[in-house]
């Protein structure tokens, strides 16, 4: 890739999605962007970059931004976070919210829906304890394409085998042809909307638990700090934050502290460790 093209592209991505395109990630550009060039009858990557230079219309910018996001996700990704969710955080919140009987959860980069549906299934499995409670799962992502798939709730045999316990597959999915369709009752527990973490998200309201997993990893330092800071404003003092396995708050912010004994879980610094 020509240096001036790299500069143009990385500038666009940084501005639109916060993606920090590093030189090591250039190899991704071709495989992700060539289909867009082909779709528009442009002559390869060079043709696409030329089009971007002469007339950077919104649909093209949007397609490029979405194509450059990494959308990989699994049900019960990393297993442990969802164990701590059911065994530690949920019981803590059941006590703390006894008066309100209302819990709000946000999946801040939900991709194709595996993460919010995992949470919905966990909540459903705890239905007895949650009788009379209201639980909201708000799931957002920058990409309309992944949100479409998330809303449909239809997954391949490959996708349902990466992390989903077999008992939950037979309990909450129906086989439709070669695909697996999630139970409408589970699907109905999740509210999807498009949202860019770079913009203001205060209008979403307050959340007891925020899952912001495997997305900060693509941002540069400043944006990570800023997003973490804005998330902290959405949380009550006893709220919890989940980050991905390769992410941490350490060295970025003192607003959050790692929760003792629970990898990947953070609480606000003002709150003493549980």
């Amino acid at each position, binding site marked *: 890739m020509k240096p001036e093209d790299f500069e143009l592209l990385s500038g666009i991505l940084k501005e639109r999605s916060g993606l920090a395109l590093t030189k090591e990630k250039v190899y991704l550009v071709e495989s992700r962007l060539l289909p867009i060039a082909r779709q528009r009858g442009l002559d390869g990557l060079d043709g696409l970059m030329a089009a971007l230079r002469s007339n950077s219309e919104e649909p093209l910018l949007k397609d490029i931004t979405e194509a450059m996001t990494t959308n990989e996700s*699994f049900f*019960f990704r990393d*297993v442990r976070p969802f164990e701590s969710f059911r065994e530690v955080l949920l019981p803590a919140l059941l006590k703390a919210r006894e008066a309100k009987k209302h819990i709000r959860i946000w999946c801040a980069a939900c991709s194709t829906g595996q993460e919010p549906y995992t949470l919905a299934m966990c909540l459903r499995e705890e239905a007895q304890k949650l009788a009379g409670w209201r639980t909201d799962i708000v799931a957002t992502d920058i990409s309309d394409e992944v949100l479409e798939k998330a809303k449909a709730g239809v997954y391949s*045999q*490959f996708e349902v*085998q*990466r*992390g989903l*316990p*077999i*008992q939950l*597959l*037979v309990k909450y999915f*129906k*086989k439709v042809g070669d695909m697996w369709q999630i139970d409408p009752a589970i699907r109905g527990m999740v509210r999807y909307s498009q949202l860019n973490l770079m913009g203001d998200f205060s209008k979403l309201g307050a959340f007891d638990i925020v899952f912001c997993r495997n997305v900060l990893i693509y941002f540069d330092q400043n944006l990570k700090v800023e997003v973490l800071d804005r998330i902290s404003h959405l949380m009550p003092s006893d709220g919890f934050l989940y980050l991905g396995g390769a992410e941490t708050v350490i060295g970025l912010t003192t607003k959050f502290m790692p929760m003792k004994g629970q990898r990947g879980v953070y609480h606000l610094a003002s709150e003493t460790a549980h």
Partner: protein
Amino acid sequence: MKTCLIVDDSKTIRSVARRMLEELQFTTVEAEDGKQALEVCTKNMPDVILLDWHMPVMNGIEFLRALRRSEGGGAPVVVFCTTENDIERIQEAIGAGANEFIMKPFDTGIIESKFAQVGLL
């Protein structure tokens, strides 16, 4: 190191599975059908069994029922690994005592994630 018994009538599948499992630090033993597998289990109960469904002599579901009735046969984690993918069949396997169920084709990622689910990794 944990031991995994691979039960499949296809030599190719057995060797593919063996390679994946060895990479995950399991010692492997192999059997071509349910009857052979039972013999292996009587001598040395494995920690986990990767089990095909359709095999000559004794199929996977028959083996599993016999295993779960045998002495110490409740212990191993049993993961079916078969081309069967109907909900009824999966339920039948769970009813017979299977802990997990892999629908072929499979890859290392699926094995790893299923084994992690049942606490083997």
